[in-house]
């Protein structure tokens, strides 16, 4: 590590501090995520607002390091799961294609979950109803690079009229994953697509 590296990192941190995203508590009941996916929930969730991600939303119940629920809604042909800026040209951004199969979508999610060098393992992939479609459900585990915490995750996905809808929950495998799993399953089961207005 030298100063050539440290200075840009410090500048990036400063830039990130100027427009902070904030956590906002959600009222129990139905919420429409990114205007495209309606879900019912039990109220014990907070949503990160101010992220400038029109098709990606993050929720948490006990706080971000302990659990995170990601919604990716209405991802169209050629789009990535999250907004990617200034990616080096030699590292192509993984993009959604509407002819993707379930395994391809898992790999798309995996590339998002491992961009920091984390280790991702797919544990199970099976057909499942989701968002009014014959979609799929997958389970995964991950060793988070940042803190080397071992996590577990579950995700539901479906391609609806050529657009991808994906809900993924992840938490440390000790305690927190099992604690929230039934709530996440119920939330995923309640999901319905809102057509574009």
């Amino acid at each position, binding site marked *: *590590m030298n100063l050539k590296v440290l200075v840009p990192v410090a500048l990036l941190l400063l830039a990130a501090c100027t427009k902070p995203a904030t956590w906002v508590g959600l009222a129990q009941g139905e919420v429409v995520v990114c205007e495209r996916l309606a879900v019912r929930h039990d109220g014990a969730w907070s949503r990160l607002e101010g992220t400038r991600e029109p098709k990606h939303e993050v929720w948490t119940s006990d706080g971000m390091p302990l659990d995170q629920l990601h919604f990716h809604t209405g991802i169209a042909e050629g789009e990535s799961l999250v907004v990617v800026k200034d990616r080096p040209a*030699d590292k192509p951004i993984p993009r959604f294609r509407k002819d993707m199969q379930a395994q391809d979508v898992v790999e798309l999610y995996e590339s998002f979950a491992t961009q920091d060098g984390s280790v991702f393992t797919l544990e199970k992939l099976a057909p499942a109803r989701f968002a009014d479609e014959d979609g799929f459900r997958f389970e995964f585990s991950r060793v988070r690079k940042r803190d080397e915490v071992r996590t577990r995750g579950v995700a539901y996905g479906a391609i609806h009229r050529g657009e991808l809808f994906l809900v993924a929950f992840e938490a440390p495998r000790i305690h927190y994953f099992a604690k929230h799993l039934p709530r996440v399953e119920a939330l995923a089961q309640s999901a319905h697509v809102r057509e574009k207005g």
Partner: protein
Amino acid sequence: MERRTFIGTCGCCAVSALLGEGWAPPARIQRPDPKSDEGGLWALMDREEERLHQSPFLMRDAALVAYVQAITCRLAQGHCPNVRTYVVRSPYFNANMAPNGMMQVWTGLMLRAENEAQLAAVIGHEIGHYLARHSVESLRDAKSRSAFAHMVGIIPVAGTLAALGLVAGAFAYSREHERAADRMGLELMAAAGYPPLEASRVWANLLAELQAEKDWTGDASKRSVLFATHPPEKEREAKLEAAARAMGKEDLDPRTGALRQAIGPWRRAWLEDELKRRKFGESLALLGRLTRVDPQDGEASYFLGEAYRLRAAEGDTDRAQEAYQRAAALPGAPPEVHRALGSLHRKAGRLPEMREAYARYLAARPEAGDAEMIRSYLKKGE
């Protein structure tokens, strides 16, 4: 921290002339006074080493670790008891050595070495830094000390792989250090019975990978930290080769089979790690080389197909299919090659071929995590 390491070059034609006639490794390094700056550095590294023991990225396969440690010992000779080798699961080409004798060899390096001699070339170079105590010299250099202080201040969670990379990167060796370590590495290789010429081949292969990146600009220093502190890379490769040729010993056995056998049980997992870097230019160059070296290598051929499929550029689907089909007919290809073919057939609407390929996958992996998903495709495809 992806990068730092290894090759400097010999600034002259004969290694012995530079190191002095009859160069021999120094006496064993004693633990420094804890109150000295060197002692403080050792204490910091001792703590990192304790944490490394807990890391999920540490390879714990006893046979694999013993294999690498044996290479280290062959090179380090009398210093062997002071050097502890750790194999770290990370797909980047890297090895580093802390002043207290903690050596890390990353799996991305082991995957890329064509033979044991090439692995020994990199380990020998790192041992060179250790024997010459370059990290202490770096620490005493004012510029590095300032960077080192910053580094210690910003490590987010000490003991993680990321932090260890930062620690390794803090020893910003000068060009002179790199050249000296390289010369010692060649000497140690020759003394241990490895052909020194293999050192320049490691370099040539790595350079070929980086050059293969799609948007290659012609300036290697922009591609990788590896090149940042080194003289022009082509010249370096040539000089290293010349130095090795001057030493002779080209007929020594590079021990190709020994390395292949040692990494065999892990190669597949490491190739998967490699593709997850999403540096497809580099991965395709690596896999192209592996399939050229051994055209009967079904495993490499399967992963070549995977690299094309994941890159998904114009024409890559056809290239992937060709590689998969070649792999499916070769020994060593994993059953997943049939799943990959099944998916291509399914997308193209070739249902009989899809059914046959998926059936072969399920027959080999009935308990696969995605078996239920594949069965649902077969049901719908009936």
